[in-house]
């Protein structure tokens, strides 16, 4: 109470002489907050925020985004691509390499949500009020832009009952107005329709909250990781096997299902012109040592669903089976997954990681070997029709014991020896008694494994959004009143009138159709044409 009193005193201080210029009031934190809130509730603010969102997304379209293309971003930062390192540093400071993860994008989103909420709350209130309020009585119907006067032999009550039926069929909400309350003292029906416009509008905007919840759930409880596996190989669904992991805060290591996936076969087929036709991984699922599903085909657009996880066909490659022997001792026997770099499949095999004399192989594979006019080897197609493997042998202190990517071992000078192999081939002894064998050429397949909760929430949000959008664009509020009274000649005069708040041109047509129906339904004196006067403004065009 005390506070209220003080505030009142401040507003009209009796001690202050009137007519004095008041000093500008310095807004306190509460006033500032209130001003910001008022500003946020304005439609023009929402528009500015929407534009800012649009501009942010242009930026994200044309500046490479670190979460999508990390290599390009690294090049921009190093200055080897893009506008140069100093500008890249400025971009970094402004978070332009990760727009959708930047603090200002989050701020923008939060402001939009606050603005949306500020706009919605009063509109919900008004909508609730309007929907519950029965249709209001009409006055001076003859002055409305859409009105028609008809004459019928029915008595007023019966005539209104007929029209009431017609309005009911048109799904109007109707109310019979008490004769004593109408100014004209005539019987009246007030009808109303089209709350779906505002309802749809609110639904559309509310759908954004549903979408936001979906995004939040996916962020918090989702998981995505990638894994490559060679034909015949198996992986277990555990955190450590995956690369490029994106895990939500609440998707813990224990949440992995622990089932095993075995790649039984991978098949890439091509059209006659060399373009890819289909990539199919055939996998089996093993739980607790038992094969629970087998022969499952995973293809692009056809992921495998198992136990809440989804397995997508992502990429594939060549994995030559390489055996390295020193005399009869097998030093290395594995299938090496190669990556495609411009038509050549390359990779590294760590043969012997213990010092001294570490051994590594640089591998390059041409799947469809041929030699061009100038004597240089190339691959005719992507299909392994005539695979040839080139192996360079490195021996010495290669740094293979370090925890870095195998391909980055230390290469000083020239490789010790090189050899060219076809499947089934074994090299001559390269260094002392070392031989390299290219046993055969299986393929490897790369999968994305993900758990994406909140998908149904997103879908529901999208459907609400669409339904809301359509009904807010096409719905329109309109009111129709029908009044009837007995005239001196014993006939009944019926006045039909209506207004629309939106889409007035469409309403004019609908009103004309309603009048036509009323005219047909109301009996007139036999032989006499229905006398009427019509005034429909929107019919000039």
């Amino acid at each position: 109470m005390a506070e209220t009193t003080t505030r009142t005193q401040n507003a009209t201080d009796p001690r202050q002489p009137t007519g004095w210029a008041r000093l500008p009031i310095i807004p306190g934190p509460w006033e500032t907050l209130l001003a910001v809130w008022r500003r946020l509730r304005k439609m023009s603010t929402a528009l500015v925020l929407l534009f800012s969102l649009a501009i942010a997304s242009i930026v994200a379209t044309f500046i490479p985004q670190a979460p999508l293309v990390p290599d390009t971003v690294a090049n921009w930062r190093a200055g080897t691509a893009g506008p140069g390192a100093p500008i890249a540093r400025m971009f970094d400071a402004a978070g332009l390499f990760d727009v959708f993860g930047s603090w200002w994008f989050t701020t923008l989103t939060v402001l939009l949500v606050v603005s949306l909420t500020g706009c919605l709350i009063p509109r919900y209130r008004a909508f609730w009020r309007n929907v519950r309020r029965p249709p209001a009585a009409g006055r001076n119907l003859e002055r409305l832009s859409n009105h028609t006067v008809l004459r019928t032999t029915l008595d007023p009550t019966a005539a209104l009952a007929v029209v009431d039926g017609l309005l009911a069929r048109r799904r109007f909400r109707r109310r019979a107005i008490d004769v004593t309350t109408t100014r004209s003292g005539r019987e009246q029906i007030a009808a109303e329709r089209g709350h779906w416009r505002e309802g749809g509008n609110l639904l559309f905007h509310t759908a954004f909250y549903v979408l936001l919840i979906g995004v939040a759930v996916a962020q918090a409880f989702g998981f995505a990781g990638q894994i490559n596996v060679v034909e015949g190989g198996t992986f277990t669904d555990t955190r450590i096997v995956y690369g490029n992991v994106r895990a939500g805060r609440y998707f813990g290591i224990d949440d992995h299902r622990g089932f095993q996936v075995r790649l039984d076969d991978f098949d890439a087929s091509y059209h006659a012109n060399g373009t890819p036709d289909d990539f199919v991984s055939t996998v089996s699922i093993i739980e607790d040592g038992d094969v629970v599903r087998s022969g499952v085909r995973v293809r692009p657009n056809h992921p495998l669903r198992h136990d809440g996880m989804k397995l997508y066909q992502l990429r594939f490659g060549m994995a030559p089976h390489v055996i390295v022997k020193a005399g009869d001792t097998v030093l290395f026997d594995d299938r090496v997954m190669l990556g495609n770099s411009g038509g050549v499949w390359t990779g590294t095999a760590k043969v012997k990681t213990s010092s001294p004399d570490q051994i590594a192989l640089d591998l390059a594979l041409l799947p469809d070997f041929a030699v061009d006019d100038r004597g240089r080897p190339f691959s005719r197609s992507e299909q392994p029709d005539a695979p040839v493997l080139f192996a360079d042998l490195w021996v010495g202190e290669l740094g293979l014991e370090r925890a870095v990517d195998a391909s980055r071992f230390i290469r000083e000078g020239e490789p010790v020896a090189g050899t060219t192999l076809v499947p089934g081939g074994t090299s001559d002894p390269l260094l002392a008694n070392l031989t390299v064998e290219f046993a055969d050429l299986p393929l490897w397949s790369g999968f994305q494994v993900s758990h994406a909760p909140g998908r149904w929430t997103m879908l529901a949000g999208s459907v609400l959004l669409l339904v809301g959008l359509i009904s807010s664009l096409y719905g329109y509020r309109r009111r129709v009143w029908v009044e009837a009274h007995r005239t001196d000649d014993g006939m009944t005069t019926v006045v039909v009138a209506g207004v629309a708040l939106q889409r007035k041109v469409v309403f004019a047509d609908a009103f004309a159709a309603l009048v036509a129906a009323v005219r047909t339904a109301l009996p007139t004196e036999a032989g006499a044409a229905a006398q009427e006067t019509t005034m429909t403004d929107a019919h000039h065009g």
Partner: protein
Amino acid sequence: MRTMADLSNTLFFVALGAYIAAMVAAFFAMAFTRVAVDGRMAPTVTGRRMGVTVTVLAATGLAAHVGSVVARGVAADRVPWANMYEYSSVMALVAVAGGLLVVQWRMGFGHLMGFVLAAAVLMMSAGAMLFVPAGPTVPALESYWLKIHVTAMVSASAIFILAAVATVLYLARDAGERRLADRSGQRYTAGTVGAASIDVTEREHAPAAVSSPLELRRVLSPVWFVVAPAAFFFVWGLMKYDVVRGTSMAPVGALLGVAAWYALPYLPPAAQLDNLAYRITAFALPIFTFAIVCGAIWAEEAWGRYWGWDPKETGSFFTWVLYAAYLHARATYGWRGRRAAWVGLSAFVALMVTYFAVNLVVVGLHSYAT
């Protein structure tokens, strides 16, 4: 299937030729139209014949175009809108069909056909430059979602073209009407300026200007109508291709600009154009929204995430936000009218940038253009 592919290509150029001829005829039809002071228009005998010629030529082109698309589908044995050439072609097809059936026939704005056809011709020419022989697509596109997502997207884009045509012409006509009203010292009513409250009855649509619409050409200098589109087309060509193509596209822009200036008196009043643009956009936006939602579902199916801010996804989000802003702007006092129209136009530019630039310039998951 070779013959089917050839047939498709031949019909494509037949359609293109018919559209160009129809477009020229449409501008001739304007020349043979008398305009009264109150804005009423009456074609001369030649004008009426020209009008029929436009319809016949456009319909013939449309038939050939449908044949081209169907033959392409048979040749490739899939839905014929899976690369940029095909997509551009179908977009032009839907735009012409919409122009003919809705804008001309249903709404009766026949004088807009020349511009609708011009937009279709531009779209087809851009598509022809990205021609690829009919063939199967990459495995990533082999899904029934291709039918749903891309069909919805191509329809929405085509309908947005119609809206953009109406918006550009609105901006031109509105500038003229304002200038006329200023000259004659009238205060304009809510009808002309800001034309465009969402619902105005026909009476409010009537132009406030009392001068003859032919005066519109006098009060607006043709210079800007040449310079601005020429510059726009130059920059567009420069960004998309190179200086040579940019320079060769500039005259096309200039020609279209002159055509718009010439057409000023024959266009419907600004308020009607604005209302037309709004109604078309309001029709296309739910389809566009549906297309984006389908795209998200497909992305979930194909790539394991429904939204990853891939350049195409970002671009379509951006376009959607701008169209949403257009609808809001039209409902906001102080924004409706010209400001809202500029928002709508920028949304259309965003749509085109998302379509062309993101496919051709930026590398992303949707870069299946060629």
